[in-house]
């Protein structure tokens, strides 16, 4: 048997209290495309960073072509023929493709001759791998897929034989994804080794020879792609255990309070949402599952009035929000839409402000006459919140920034639920939060639902989605799938939907 191009033995890495990689063993054979698949936070990107020398593992060894390497830094990794294509491109704006590729390897102080030589060499590299780009195009003008090709060429130009691609299709349009997969196929044919990190089953099934499944920092399974199926991988990826607290689901759903139809969102970064339609009914929790970066944040931002609509519309409380009639966050709030944002530290709280001030963000009109704010009102609101949510330490004049993550989240949830809103948007409500707080927030969510509130729950935690939701929809590459009734939903089906593999009727 051939020597593996890349061999990891017992690699572990811990960040604070999070064990991002645990005893990972991995062999990548030369001339193959090896997939690493897993949910968000499974440790895939950490593993890639370790291979490229961006993170030093706490323990374990790395061998490249059979030779052990120690204290790997990115420069050494490049020297050993490893190239990495980051999720976020490292291309200098305003520079041509050629200039970006050549940066750092210019050969001589005068740029002219160096660039001329590089142009010839680049043409050779392009031919060898069947790639085609215009070296003189400014990178800003190139579509995302072509920019990614420039990144790949950057690595190949530096002599990479082992290419790491970290979620390479996250920002790509479907046809660009197909082009990338074809390219990887050709690169394998020309002898390159590729490690493809993704959460999309389709990509694994299309292009990979072998696949490793990661969950909670561990490699839980490894398969030859020809011997496995998308179903099996989806099950392996999300885990087997089904949560079974069905008694919490006893809601009556009749009245639609928020209707999204044909919603499209596009911004400078490309298309975020395409033709998204669903309705949210009073007294139900609609769970939105999906690997982050597939449009969930954008959807929340649209519904919260933080982002303009490009196509389609949102109807709520008799108001129709579309491209020509945008709504502000204040207006959405006045329409009864409360919002627990995904990023509590940047969007949910003003960290240097104390709990009293954070308790009334966006709701100052209720705190005194005109532009005045009555300190007693602030104090009273804060104290109610501290009592209801057991915020610790129970001191109202403490800056939000000194609270633990769980207590910060309690402040946000307390504020957004204080007035029993008819509609509540929840963005990752329990991410990075301790177990006791999770239970508290979950019980508050159920309580609101039972009172007739309509909730949209966006979570990367599939267990949470299954435990709380009445219906489940998923987003993959900005397209919505579902809804499924949670009662009849199967985790592997939801896993497939998250990975963009059909399943479920559209609403």
């Amino acid at each position, binding site marked *: 048997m051939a020597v593996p191009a890349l061999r990891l033995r017992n690699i572990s890495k811990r960040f604070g209290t999070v064990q991002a990689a645990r005893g990972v063993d991995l062999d990548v054979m030369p001339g193959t495309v090896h997939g690493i698949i897993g949910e968000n936070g499974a440790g895939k990107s950490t593993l890639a*960073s370790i291979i490229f020398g961006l993170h030093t593992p706490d323990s374990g060894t790395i061998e490249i072509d059979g030779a052990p390497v120690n204290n790997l830094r990115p*420069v050494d990794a490049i020297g050993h023929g490893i190239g990495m294509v980051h999720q976020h491109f490292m291309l200098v704006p305003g520079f041509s493709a050629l200039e970006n590729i050549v*940066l750092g390897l210019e050969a001589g102080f005068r740029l002219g001759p160096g660039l001329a030589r590089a142009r010839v060499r680049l043409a050779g590299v392009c031919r060898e791998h069947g790639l085609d780009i215009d070296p003189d195009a400014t990178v800003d003008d190139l579509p995302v897929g072509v920019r990614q090709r420039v990144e790949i060429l950057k690595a190949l130009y530096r002599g990479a034989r082992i290419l790491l691609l970290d979620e390479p299709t996250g920002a790509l349009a479907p046809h660009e994804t197909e082009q990338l997969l074809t390219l990887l196929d050709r690169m394998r044919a020309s002898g390159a080794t590729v490690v493809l990190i993704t959460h999309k089953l389709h990509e694994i099934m299309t292009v990979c020879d072998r696949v490793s499944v990661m969950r909670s920092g561990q490699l839980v399974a490894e398969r030859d792609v020809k011997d496995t199926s998308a179903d099996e991988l989806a099950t392996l990826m999300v885990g087997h255990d089904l949560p079974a607290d069905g008694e919490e689901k006893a809601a009556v759903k009749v009245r639609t309070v928020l209707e999204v139809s044909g919603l499209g969102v596009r911004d400078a970064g490309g298309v975020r949402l395409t033709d998204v339609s669903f309705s949210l009914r009073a007294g139900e929790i609609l769970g939105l599952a999906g690997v982050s970066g597939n449009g969930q944040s954008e959807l929340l931002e649209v519904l919260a009035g933080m982002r303009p609509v490009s196509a389609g519309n949102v109807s709520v409380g008799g108001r129709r929000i579309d491209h020509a009639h945008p709504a502000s966050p204040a207006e959405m709030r006045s329409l009864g839409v409360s919002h627990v944002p995904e990023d509590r530290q940047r969007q949910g709280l003003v960290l240097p402000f104390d709990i009293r001030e954070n308790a009334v963000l966006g709701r100052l009109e209720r705190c005194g006459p005109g532009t005045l704010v009555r300190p007693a009102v602030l104090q009273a609101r804060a104290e109610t919140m501290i009592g209801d949510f057991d915020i610790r330490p129970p001191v109202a004049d403490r800056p939000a920034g000194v609270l633990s993550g769980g207590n910060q989240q309690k402040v946000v949830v307390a504020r957004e639920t204080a007035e029993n809103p008819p509609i509540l948007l929840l963005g990752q409500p329990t991410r990075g939060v301790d177990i006791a707080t999770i239970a508290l927030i979950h019980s508050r969510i159920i309580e609101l639902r039972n009172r007739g509130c309509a909730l949209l729950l966006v979570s990367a935690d599939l267990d949470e989605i299954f435990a709380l939701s009445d219906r489940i929809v998923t987003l993959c590459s900005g397209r919505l799938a579902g809804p499924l009734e949670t009662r009849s939903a199967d985790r592997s089906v939801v896993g497939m939907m998250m990975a963009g593999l059909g399943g479920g009727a559209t609403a």
Partner: protein
Amino acid sequence: MAETWIDLLRLLDGALRLATPLILCAMAGLVSERSGVINIALEGKLLTGAFTAAAAVTLTGSVAVGLAAAVCAATMLSMVHGFACITHRGEQIISGVAINIVAAGLTVVAGNALFRQGGHTPPLASDDRFPALTLPFAETLAAVPVLGPFWGELVSGHTLPVYLALASVPVVWWLIYRSRFGLRLRAAGELPEAVESAGVSVTVLRYRGLLIAGVLCGVAGAYLSTGHGGGFVRDMSAGKGFLALAALIFGRWKPWPVLFACLLFGVLDAAAPRLHGLEVPLLGTVPVALVSVLPYGLTVVLLAGFFGRAEAPGALGRPPGRTG
């Protein structure tokens, strides 16, 4: 006709003299800002250079020593700026403002200590200043109409720093756009993470940018006190460093447009006294203050977006973040 031509040449000649420190400082700012370091400290470096040159010439009698001393002093300040905001990733504006304040105070204190003339240096004799250089053919061509006066009045007869300033523009242009150093420097100013991931040190690049900036500011300072003027007067930079910064923005961080902006400001400056008391139909007498304020007014108008947005380097003022 010939009279008007000569008048115009005299005006441009004066404009060139006044624009010289602007050009040098703006090129200094261009090199450092293209690398991603905001250089609001141009003013302080210019002032320090002016004082050091005048003091050194007074003490040694050599204009060359003065120039060298000015370059050293301004470069040192540049390195202090770099130490604060490159090595220690400090706030670049604050560091620049601090340098300006220190320069304004220190030049006066040192001047008082050395010469006891209220912060001034003793007036320099004309032998102690940069001599005017007469270019070849200036006399031969004198008789030729149009071209003769152009060569003799405008091009010839300036001091060394004026020619250095004019030469600095193509040199900076070549360095920025045609050299490996320039490619990396611009990349460091746009996306330093890409430079680091290519295995090139952003720190070294930005220090080099500041080094060049220091040298150019030093030349500008020496010109101010030992070329254009005859000795150091407190606060003699009089906002020229900031005006250079305005020209840099006006010229969108590109060498030739920046030169144009500096010359435009120079023309306005040179024309101000001539316009004083001039009767303009409908407006009446033009107040000289209105003319002096024009460069700043133009910059404000530009920044307000009337002529399209000024695109600053993408990573201006930002230390490189960690990758991964």
